[in-house]
């Protein structure tokens, strides 16, 4: 940005760099293709590398100042408070009116957005607030879904008691997994949770007499409210989103209470938090229980929605997707979780036409997002007071 000459030569240098990188990547990727596909794929690859490499340059050319992330948290002033309240009301209205505008298919996608919002909110408590990296979150989702499914199909338990038991079971699983969490460092924790997720899935897949193995469980009852059966998509949409709002409200209050502050303190510096008299271990455990229970709730709703579940729905990929929602939205931000869920559920639906490439693009997008905007779309705003 010093003078135009230097900037031009840098531009040239960077262009050469881009071409070389693109060429190198092509050399790497192309040998795996049959020749006919090579021509199809090359332009995409070039475009992608160009984007990644040119981003800093474009930013400096447009003279957009690099965002300085302040260490001091931003205080929320009166006007932003009103603005965010207005946005919240608008969002609620949009969600409430959405079924009137959409058809059966879009509302069905809306139901899935709601269920994933719950999952993202649950994972956010564990990863975003307590700072515990969990890579097996789908396990709690599976535990909730299977608890309700088994209680319902085998013991004829209706939805509501089944849902309560499902949530409690998932919360208890969170407690059990949380116990080893207390003594492990970040990366070990990631691998233990990953292993836990795999164990749950493999057990569900193989223990035929308990979970009916890979065939899954069919004919799960839908919820009944005052002798009215809540069916997907339209009535179920409201059931799911009302649940999301209740959980959101609950978590929002929790975040603003001393619980939220304790979690942030433990996440940012466990030693200091302990020294301040915050029982770090107890709060970590609590985060695991709450996160697990919310995922269990999502699992119960999912089982009731599709009325058929199998271990296929709870793979490692599922855990990664939920984690991506939290990270995309901005870790620790409740609004971010919903936004992340909306984007990551609807985008694949929109991209159904080239379904083969969507996971490829998803992977590339994760890398680009981390480089371009690691704090996510809506990072949390911390209040100064309280």
């Amino acid at each position, binding site marked *: 940005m010093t003078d135009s000459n230097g900037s031009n030569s840098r531009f040239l240098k960077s262009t050469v760099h881009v071409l070389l990188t693109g060429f190198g990547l092509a050399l790497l990727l192309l040998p795996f293709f049959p020749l006919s596909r090579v021509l199809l794929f090359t332009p995409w690859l070039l475009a992608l590398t160009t984007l990644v490499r040119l981003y800093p340059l474009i930013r400096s050319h447009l003279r957009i100042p690099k965002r300085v992330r302040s260490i001091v948290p931003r205080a929320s002033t009166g006007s932003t408070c009103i603005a965010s309240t207005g946005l919240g009301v608008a969002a609620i209205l949009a969600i409430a009116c959405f079924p009137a505008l959409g058809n059966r298919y879009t509302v069905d996608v809306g139901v899935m957005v709601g269920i994933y919002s719950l999952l993202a909110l649950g994972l956010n408590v564990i990863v975003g607030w307590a700072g515990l990296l969990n890579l097996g979150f789908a396990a709690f989702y599976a535990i909730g879904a299977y608890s309700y499914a088994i209680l319902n199909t085998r013991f004829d338990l209706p939805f509501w008691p089944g849902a309560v038991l499902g949530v409690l079971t998932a919360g208890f699983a969170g407690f059990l997994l949380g116990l080893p969490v207390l003594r*492990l460092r970040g990366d070990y924790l990631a*691998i233990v949770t990953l292993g836990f997720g795999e*164990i749950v899935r*493999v057990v569900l897949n193989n223990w035929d007499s308990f979970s009916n193995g890979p065939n899954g469980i069919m004919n799960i009852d839908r919820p009944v409210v005052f002798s009215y059966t809540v069916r997907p998509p339209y009535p179920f949409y409201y059931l799911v989103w009302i649940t999301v709002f209740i959980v959101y409200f609950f978590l929002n209050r929790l975040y603003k209470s001393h619980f939220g502050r304790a979690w942030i303190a433990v996440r940012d510096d466990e030693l200091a938090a302990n020294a301040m008299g915050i029982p770090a271990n107890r709060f970590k455990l609590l985060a695991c229980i709450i996160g697990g229970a919310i995922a269990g709730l999502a699992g119960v709703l999912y089982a009731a929605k599709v009325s058929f579940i199998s271990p296929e729905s709870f793979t490692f990929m599922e855990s990664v997707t939920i984690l991506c929602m939290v990270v995309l939205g901005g870790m620790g931000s409740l609004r971010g979780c919903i936004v992340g869920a909306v984007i990551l559920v609807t985008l694949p639906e929109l991209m159904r036409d080239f379904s083969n490439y969507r996971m490829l693009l998803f992977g590339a997008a994760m890398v680009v997002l*981390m480089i371009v905007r690691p704090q996510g779309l809506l990072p949390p705003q911390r209040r100064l007071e309280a």
Partner: protein
Amino acid sequence: MFFQQLVNGLTIGGVYALIALGYTMVYGIIELINFAHGEIYMIGAYAGIIAIAAAQTLIAGGIPPIAAVALALLAAMLVCAAYGFTMEKLAYRPLRHAPRLSPLISALGVSIFLQNFIMIAQGTRDKVFPHLFENTVAFDLGSVRVSLIQIAIIVGCFMMMALLHLVIQHTKIGTAMRATAQDKTAAALCGIHVDHVISVTFMIGSLLAGAAGVMIAMYYGLVNYSIGYLAGIKAFTAAVLGGIGNIPGAMIGGMILGLLESFGAGYISPEYKDVIAFSILILVLLIKPSGLLGENLAEKA
């Protein structure tokens, strides 16, 4: 039964150890769980198959089996080293100073990308590794059958590990790697090109994973685009078991995991061999969180 499972366990354990080395070396230097490492192993297997197929079509009359294996190993190692280098440069280097979670997510992204890339490029069906050797049973003692391939894999793994040990302990780049792993800033002050060392680490790790990929493809005869995921987790488990960041630990961890899994599959139930592996991992972490050979690391401030 016992000896059979022992040999099977050593074979698979050697492969886990080779992959685990890549995890542990990278973790030792930049403290990143390189989730895409399993995919590198898968790419190595594919590269080997493609190289053999290319050689067999290009060279009239075909090539001798030994040469084919050597060619597959060489191709896989070269391709994988290139992939490791590029991966680090594009996806991890820009995130060197980002919060811990960012490179991890980026690594997951690379993993998804590579897996789907191979799925699109090579199709979803299993690829067959060419049947190179006629008589594959080296010796047969009634209850114990050891194939030539198993012996080759075990010997090959040990040779590579010995070679790696020599490189790390007795060469200039090995010294630089150890110095960088201990303290990046101090290493840079001593005139070590840290970026360079990290690139080389990724390349060596990927090269070992590529060799492991060819070996496993030869052993099972079938390769699929999704094999990287489970092998990657298992190898990471092995690395943690031995104490992550610790190179002899990764070798021992891989062997132990391979043996446990093989005995578990033989004596308990083959369906639950993954569960056995993970349960043992969790138990080890509960009892000795730093792994078998790891020093007690305090949380870095």
